[in-house]
């Protein structure tokens, strides 16, 4: 893949802002849900749905598509927003999040909405499913890649390490996992709740190739994924360091925004802050 020119980066950053706006609007309307993670991961989701993934929003079940498995289902507002902005369904439908009868369930359900590869919410299960897909594709000599997006907090689940062992054993190089390393979980900072570090060394010890990158830098993240694709004897983990609540300075880094939505008033303020982000993302916070 060619490296991105400035214009392409600017286009992706603008898209990430639009996705952040949709996330805030969804959460205000839903009156419940998670705020910090979706905002922090907006750049990563933008990179995937508008640059990295080989997919077709008009043919969600196209067999040759790359698979993106979201493991920490609670950040689904950003997944829904990215799916809508890339054309899987209308952006208006995003406002039905968490409402009765909506296809946008509080945690994503595969059978409800096109574009979802699995059902998630209960933590620690996405990496195994992604590994299962990668294993099956390799059996059939299929070339598509499987990406798994997971949180840092869910590394506390035992199932994750079973999956890590499995993917390491079978050298699933068609599997690329991305960990949202935002250092927060519901009850506080990960290193206070249950220390994860040295997390990169742990994965290396499980026979993974590990990269670290600023997850709020679209250009750097895409370049890390390119590098990951070049590793062909091991599964790759990209630790994406992100700022929880990214784009709304007053909530950035604050774990208390992990699991609550903005009120209507807060939402208005947050949207204003996001709309003044343009061009400042990298310079101010990177």
């Amino acid at each position, binding site marked *: 893949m060619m490296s991105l020119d400035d214009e392409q980066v600017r286009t992706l950053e603008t898209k990430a802002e639009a996705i952040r706006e949709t996330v805030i609007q969804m959460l205000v309307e839903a009156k419940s849900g998670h705020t910090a993670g979706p905002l922090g991961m907006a750049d990563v989701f933008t990179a995937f749905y508008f640059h990295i993934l080989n997919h077709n929003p008009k043919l969600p079940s196209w067999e040759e598509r790359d698979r993106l498995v979201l493991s920490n289902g609670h950040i689904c507002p950003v997944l829904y927003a990215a799916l809508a902005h890339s054309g899987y369904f209308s952006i208006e439908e995003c406002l039905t999040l968490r409402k009765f009868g909506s296809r946008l369930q509080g945690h994503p*359900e595969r059978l409800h909405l096109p574009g979802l*590869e699995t059902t998630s919410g209960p933590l620690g*299960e996405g990496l195994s499913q992604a590994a*299962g897909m990668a294993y099956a594709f390799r059996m059939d000599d299929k070339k598509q890649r499987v990406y798994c997006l997971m949180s840092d907090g869910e590394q506390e689940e035992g*199932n994750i390490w079973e*999956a890590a062992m499995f993917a390491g054993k079978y050298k699933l190089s068609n599997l690329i996992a991305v960990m949202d390393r935002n250092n927060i979980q519901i009850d506080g900072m990960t290193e206070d709740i249950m220390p994860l570090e040295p997390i990169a060394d742990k994965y290396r010890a499980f026979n993974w190739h590990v990269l670290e990158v600023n997850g709020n830098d679209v250009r750097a993240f895409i370049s890390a994924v390119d590098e990951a694709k070049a590793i062909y004897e091991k599964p790759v983990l990209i630790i994406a360091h992100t700022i929880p609540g990214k784009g709304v300075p007053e909530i950035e880094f604050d774990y208390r925004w992990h699991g609550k939505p903005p009120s209507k008033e807060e939402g208005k303020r947050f949207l204003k802050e996001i709309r003044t982000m343009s061009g400042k993302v990298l310079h101010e916070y990177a």
Partner: protein
Amino acid sequence: MLNSDAKLSAKIFADDIEKASTRDGFGKGSVEAGKNDPRVVVLCADLSESTRAEWFQKEFPERFVEMGVAEQNMATVAAGMAAAGKIPFITSYAAFNPGRNYEQIRTTIALNHMPVKICGMHAGVSVGPDGATHQMLEDIGLMRMLPGMTVLAPGDAEEARKAVLAAAQTDGPVYIRFSRTATPIFTTSDTPFTIGKAMMLWKSESPKVAILSTGSLSYTALMAARALSESGIDSLVLHVPTVKPLDEGAVLDAVRSVDGVVTVEEHQAAGGFGSAIAEFLSQHHPMPMRLLGVLDVFGQSGEPDQLLEHYGLDTLHIQTAARELSKSIG
């Protein structure tokens, strides 16, 4: 009277009736399913010999996946493989599969409606010496509560073989329960098996009691019915290998002409097969019932026959329940 339509074994009442464990039926059935459909894969959690997964491994090494001792990962990897077009059979002891990995099954297999076939071996107290930790008695309950899950408890090795073949061809998730101990093979290759269908094994001239049973205890129930008939109590035995979806028509037909129902299973009486029958009959045809199963206790070490007798799941206990029931309604 034996049901001739069931085409049961000619040796059904002979002392030298052939015996095998239902897990052997899994071994055979999985190899046949593998031959029929290249999408079939078998996942194993370090128990290839005792689950008989090695039978498939020998035939299809490239479609056999060793997971190590990691049942949660086995269920979720299988969900991923199913999403990528495979038909995975996941194998371990029922205490761990679906015992250990229940939530993984619920979220990634049942809620996703993935065609993963969950094979729980060593179910029931007839596991024997291994004791309570390995004698799974809650699996039918766990699995039948999950929306969209088919639940099978085959009666013998031959029926288990057919159940595996049928499961491979069924859309969606299936739980199949197998046991460790060799039990009589009372069906034949000609005996019909369809998921969702129950089968009359025995019907006396004017039955007063219906014995409904699942798993290999259906043979014990049949022996009980024969003994009851010799002592002048007419009964019928309906073998119900599909616990879910229940063959409601066959159950209603079976109980319409009788005054009481005895259910038999190698499982907790609470939440299992008998409960499923009670839930159905209480709403559609309420009648006196006795639920034979393990009564809110765990198992223990011992020989299979000893344990079945201890927990009230042998021929004599079934006869006693049927007698008491026919007296109380008499």
